[in-house]
């Protein structure tokens, strides 16, 4: 471990961390935005879910590196390629949780809301989605953490991320760089995970207790 390497390369490390954060977090957010409407439809009209789930399972089986490669002709060796591939991945992680979360809302609760005069949209927005939030959040956390970790693989097709430190460290047989990369990927993922746990608590104050 050569500690002096770190301050000497501060700006590089910072830039790679930022790139990695962007490549890991944006796809999870896009995945969430796509999952919500699809999940709401699938929870409401049951026939819609089995075919969607089959497609999701197949997409989930597609390795992200393979998907990066398949997107190269269309988007080149760019951030877009990595972001689209990881969005597909996070969609596969988050969508089943949206459906599970909405289906787990007790029927008595939805009936009570209907009886109180809630229309379907208002019931969805103010009763069902909030109650499903913990399960949706669990999916989002997996999406963000895996996304940050997977983004480093984007380096293999030349898209800049903390993966650069792994590859450069290997080529120069310089373990310090690899350590720094590993620690930063894990730290970045844990920080984002904690932020999401905090956001989840803030969104569902009724579950926050001891």
């Amino acid at each position, binding site marked *: 471990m050569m500690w002096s390497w770190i301050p000497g390369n501060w700006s590089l490390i910072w830039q790679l961390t930022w790139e990695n954060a962007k490549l890991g977090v944006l796809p999870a957010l896009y995945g969430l935005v796509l999952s919500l409407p699809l999940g709401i439809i699938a929870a409401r009209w049951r026939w819609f879910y089995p075919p969607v789930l089959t497609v999701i399972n197949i997409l*989930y089986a597609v390795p992200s590196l393979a998907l990066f490669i398949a997107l*190269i002709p269309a988007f080149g060796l760019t951030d877009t390629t990595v972001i689209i591939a990881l969005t597909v991945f996070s969609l596969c992680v988050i969508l089943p949780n949206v459906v599970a979360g909405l289906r787990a809302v007790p029927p008595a609760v939805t009936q009570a809301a209907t009886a109180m005069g809630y229309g379907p949209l208002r019931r969805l927005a103010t009763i069902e989605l909030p109650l499903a939030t913990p399960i949706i959040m669990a999916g989002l956390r997996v999406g963000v953490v895996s996304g940050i970790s997977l983004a480093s693989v984007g380096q*293999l097709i030349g898209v800049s991320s903390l993966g650069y430190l792994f590859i450069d460290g290997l080529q120069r047989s310089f373990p310090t760089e690899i350590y720094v990369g590993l620690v930063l990927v894990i730290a970045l993922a844990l920080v984002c995970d904690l932020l999401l746990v905090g956001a989840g608590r803030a969104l569902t104050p009724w579950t926050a207790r001891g």
Partner: protein
Amino acid sequence: MSFFSYAWDWVTTSANWHGNDSIPQQLLAHIGYSVLPLLVAALIAVPAGVAIGHRGGKITIVVVNIANAWRSIPTLGLLILLAVFLGFSTLTWLLPLVVLAIPPILVNACAGVAGVDPDVRDAAKGVGMTTWQQVVQVEVPMAMPLILVGLRTAAIFVVATSTIAAYIGLGGLGRFIIDGLASEQYGPVAGGALLVVILAIIVLALFAGLSRLVVPAGLRKQAKTE
């Protein structure tokens, strides 16, 4: 030309199917790199998940959080770090893939066993089953659908990710991808990627078949009527 036409041209070129480092050889190597980590991870994570799920309570939440943090360990980084220190040893490729496979198996086994209906547990105890019998004869069979989901997810992760073993000079389908990227030939890159996808889909199909074999008939019936 699109991804598929490149991939198809390369896969159907007969020269790629013969001789050293041909498609069949790398395919076998790839399967070899995938099976062992999955077995090791299953031997660790299924019993651990079942034990934790059986105990239940707060510890299951702790496990979910640990497993989630665990997912942040980048496989590529761990692989490269081990390669620098250990060279091409078995541990170099085995450990990162085992690390990758553990969280989904652990979380699903734990959730499956923890989710067994308390009435069923009480009934098992009531008819005089020992703890061991309760776990092995009642809880594990009932948790089997979820245990299989965990194993399937892990298998898919491992098949997908053993591709990057090629980056440190090992074989497998990743060889075509890494070498193709290095020599800027898109054919083998696309072809290798396509073969990995096909292999992953075969894994998916195998698990669909496996679940028919090992999920108790009563549970399958219940799932259908739900």
